[in-house]
């Protein structure tokens, strides 16, 4: 969260041309998630900031869809898991969403035109992200895929976070509903912490 580019509320309204009223209404209708409102103190007092890439994509979508849908319908459309999106396996690799190495390892039996659901694609995307960062090994990726497959559905689209903890070479994956606070024992290392809602957004924005 901390290293990403932020945009202040004032700049956001200026660049997108929306008003305060609209922004607050969208927040009430839960079109913009609470977690994106980041409050910081600046020299002019309290200011609200947003993760720039996420909020710009979201406002763009709202403005484009608003014409033919009411706000309530829109809220349903922006549901965390877009079920209507399906992806072909070779598409994922070609568009560099998932690296070839990962695909070769975990989806060799599936033919190139196998269609994955968004949830399956998300699992690959998350694994790929950790692999690319060098935080996780391929063997651990298998563990992650199993964990996500088994437990991710249980959150039913509620915001959740993935924790990756390692102690003395033994790795543990943990899925917890967000926002939550965890503390790990000394000697154990919290290798990665990923907000899955954010990953969903990112994957979505890469697809469109």
């Amino acid at each position: 969260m901390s290293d990403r580019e932020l945009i202040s509320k004032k700049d956001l309204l200026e660049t997108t041309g929306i008003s305060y009223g609209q922004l607050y209404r969208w927040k009430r209708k839960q079109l913009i998630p609470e977690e994106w409102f980041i409050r910081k103190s600046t020299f002019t007092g309290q200011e609200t900031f947003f993760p720039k890439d996420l909020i710009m994509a979201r406002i763009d979508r709202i403005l484009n869809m608003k014409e033919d849908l009411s706000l309530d319908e829109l809220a349903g459309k922006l549901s965390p898991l877009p079920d209507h999106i399906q992806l072909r396996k070779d598409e994922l690799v070609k568009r560099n969403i998932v690296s070839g190495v990962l695909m070769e390892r975990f989806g060799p039996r599936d033919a190139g035109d196998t269609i994955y659901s968004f949830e399956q694609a998300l699992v690959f995307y998350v694994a790929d992200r950790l692999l690319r960062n060098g935080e996780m090994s391929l063997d651990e990726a298998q563990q992650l895929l199993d964990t996500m497959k088994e437990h991710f559905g249980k959150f039913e689209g509620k915001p959740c976070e993935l924790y990756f903890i390692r102690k003395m070479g033994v790795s543990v994956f943990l899925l917890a509903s967000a926002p939550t606070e965890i503390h790990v024992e000394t000697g154990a290392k919290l290798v990665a912490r990923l907000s899955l809602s954010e990953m969903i957004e990112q994957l979505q924005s890469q697809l469109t």
Partner: protein
Amino acid sequence: MEKAKDQRPDLNMSGVGQAAGGLYRSVRIDGVCTIATDVECETMDIHGIGKARGNVKADRFQCNGKMNVDGALDAKELRIDGIVRVNGPVAGERIEVNGVLTADGDCEAEKAEFRGWFTIKGLLNAGNVDIMLYGKCEAREIGGETIRVERGSSSVWKRLWQWAMPKLITRLEADVIEGDEIVLEDTTADIVRGNLVRIGKGCKIGRVEYRSDLQVHPQAKVSEQTQL
């Protein structure tokens, strides 16, 4: 959970007692009663002293007495003629407060009318915010389309007692007020941001940022103003 609506029981309590939460059609409390867990109902009427240990969800919520909610309060129509304290957030379509509302979380509604006192520790977010000041009103942040703050009547006696009881001071205090159309009176705020802004009598504003129009009453104090 999917009980047919007409099968839901009513909960009527008079005297002193405790009830379990759950699904009800109507809940009515006339004495001193506690609801032990989450409760969901069509109508809730509190005429005495009520306490809910969990979340309260109702289509219509009315309180003529005193009510404490430990969780969240969610009602389509919310009318408070007494004293309500909520430890979580408050959400509704229409909120009308003629008494005292204290909320530790955010307060969200399409239309919110306040005639009394309130303390909202989070964000007050409503399409239309209408505030008549009869006592000390506080919110960390106020946001919406139209925000109107007016001074209610204040009698001579009330003014006399103000030195002893700070709650009687008719004033709105907020860190930030943001909206499309903002009309303020007797308000203290650090920052006011809006499209059309009218700063009325008795306001003390640190900084106003406006887009199209700003009017400041001669008896108001604005330290800094910028047009965007």
